[in-house]
């Protein structure tokens, strides 16, 4: 995908293809968890599919991604292979991390997926380092750092944005503001109306967009990525979105007012994006159904691969602690 491409039906379809993959994988994971066929910690990205897809289409495979435990949408959008992902969810030897990281620590450097952290805000300082290395080596490589609104209240966020701005690092700080940090509503935990307002404190460009609007998101994301690529420094990009499945899998979400939830449902980005694709003429209903079938087949294969794979060898417990084994 050429990042300089104009917004149009082709760009919209590219976004929707990634979003659809995310939607299908997420639905299947929740179904497997509900039925007890999968036992894993899981943080559903339902509602944030377009948010992940709309920026990832601007990235190259060599660009870096740092994301968080609610990160499967970001990983899939960046090119995470389904087999490695599913086998890791099942805690198998064939998983991306040989079953030693699990869903909260998906890593796949071949697609630039460098860190998935289980600590809110913990990836932000590391994103700076990846970007610094690219800058020092003179590489054409940007770092996308994804986090939620909650992460903007942790010290690491502020230390890191200040440093990135000072050093003009090629990084995009991408806040997916889904309105809730764990179970606490955004405005009860954050003193500014928009997370992107905080960019001003670091002399950084801050942009807030409607994460449900593919065009607005795609345009702002492309600009942030291109600025980073051109050496013009970091952007704090905030996409307003919504988290339909609560904080953790099984979270009843009693803290979300019914009216708010209903309003968010009415603005669910996935049906809207699909309708827009169809309206644009980029794909027909039959095309999209074929795409869905293709994704489901690949997912079936990946899940079968995961199920059939062996558990990690017990010797794995002593491997990868140090580069050359444990000598303690």
């Amino acid at each position: 995908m050429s990042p300089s491409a104009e917004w149009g039906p082709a760009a919209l379809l590219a976004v929707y293809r990634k979003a659809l993959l995310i939607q299908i994988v997420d639905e299947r994971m929740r179904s497997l968890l509900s039925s007890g066929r999968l036992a894993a910690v899981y943080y559903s990205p339902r509602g944030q599919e377009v948010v992940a897809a709309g920026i990832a289409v601007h990235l190259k495979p060599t660009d870096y991604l740092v994301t968080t435990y609610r990160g499967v949408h970001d990983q899939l959008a960046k090119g995470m292979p389904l087999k490695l992902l599913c086998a890791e969810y099942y805690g198998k030897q064939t998983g991306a991390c040989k079953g030693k990281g699990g869903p909260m620590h998906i890593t796949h450097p071949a697609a630039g997926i460098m860190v998935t952290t289980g600590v809110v805000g913990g990836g932000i300082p590391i994103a700076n380092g990846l970007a610094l290395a690219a800058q020092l080596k003179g590489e054409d490589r940007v770092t996308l750092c994804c986090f939620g609104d909650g992460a903007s209240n942790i010290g690491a966020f502020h230390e890191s944005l200040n440093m990135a701005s000072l050093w003009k690092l090629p990084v995009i700080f991408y806040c997916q503001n889904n309105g809730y940090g764990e179970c606490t509503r955004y405005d009860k935990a954050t003193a500014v109306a928009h997370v992107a307002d905080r960019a001003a404190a670091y002399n950084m460009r801050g942009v807030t967009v409607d994460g449900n609007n593919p065009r607005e998101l795609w345009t702002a994301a492309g600009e942030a990525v291109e600025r980073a690529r051109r050496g013009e420094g970091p952007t704090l990009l905030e996409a307003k979105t919504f988290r339909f499945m609560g904080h953790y899998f099984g979270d009843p979400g009693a803290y979300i007012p019914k009216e708010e939830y209903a309003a968010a449902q009415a603005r669910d980005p996935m049906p809207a994006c699909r309708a827009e694709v169809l309206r644009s003429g980029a794909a027909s209903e039959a095309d999209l159904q074929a795409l869905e079938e293709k994704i489901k087949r690949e997912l079936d294969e990946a899940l079968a691969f995961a199920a059939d794979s062996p558990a990690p060898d017990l010797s794995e417990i002593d491997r990868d602690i140090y580069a050359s084994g444990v000598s303690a």
Partner: protein
Amino acid sequence: MSTVEAASKTITFTDAYRLALEEAMAADPTVILLGEDIADEEGGGVFKVTKGLSTKYGKQRVRTTPISEEAIVGAAIGAALAGMRPVAEIMLMNFVTVAMDQIVNHAAKLRFMSGGQTGVPITIRTRTGAGAGTAGQHSDMLEAWFAHVAGMKVVVPSTPADAVGLLASCIFDDDPCLFIEDSLTRALTGPAPPPGHRVPLGRANVTREGSDVSVIGYGRPIRDALQIAERLAGEGISVEVVDVRTVSPLDSDTILKSAAKTRRAVVVHEAPRSFGVGAEIAARIQEHLYDTLAAPVLRVASREVPVPFAKVLEQEYLYKPAAIEAAIRRTLDSKGRR
């Protein structure tokens, strides 16, 4: 300079740290330094360890940072993931606490949690130690915390030559290393090592051979132990001194070999006694050598209080060289003597 000439020279600990950094930067362009005030415009570091390096290697590679320990360590981790060998200077060990998430949850574990796909070859240089009147937030020895986390390497040199060799090994090691420098003894001198000197990590050093009792420790107390050993030799007491050098991974083999030979061990460190590295060393010795030991393994360490400011209180906190000697005599007087 020939090896012979180099060996006849003496250097301070500060020289030693700088020498290791400079040799590493000259040898490998991926070695970069990050830390507060470390470039020459800011004075080359509060302790002058990096003096001259930014002038020689540029401000890109010798980077003065904001006072942001978490961002410093995080930047080092990220750069390491992308193929650099960053050395982060955290001015004092107590400030490392500000960066604990980065060190404990990320640097130490990313290799394991990624199934070996990524690694974090960073070195965190930091400095600490009581005795200079800097009180409770500038003096703590916290090495046990980090030794307790799988994936970290923890290194404490006791001579300038070892400081050069160990720091070089940390920088070129593929795992995260915490390199702990002693605040009080930075101007002490010792023989300079030859160029390119390396001391392998995870290897203890029998600094002085003896047959009656082993004193096992690291860092500042090693010098005390050597002086005591020299003095006690006059009384016919033969003290072996084992400098652990790498706290983690701990060289059990060398420690156990020494304790098996002398059948008596005194473990010594500056950090407070309880839950310290000495407890781990003592436990390993008794687990392996219970039937061999002629006396209980004794510990000499500092007290479990915040490091006080007033000189008399600070000295009351610190381990005492006299206590090392007393512990040696106790192991020899033990009823278990055979």
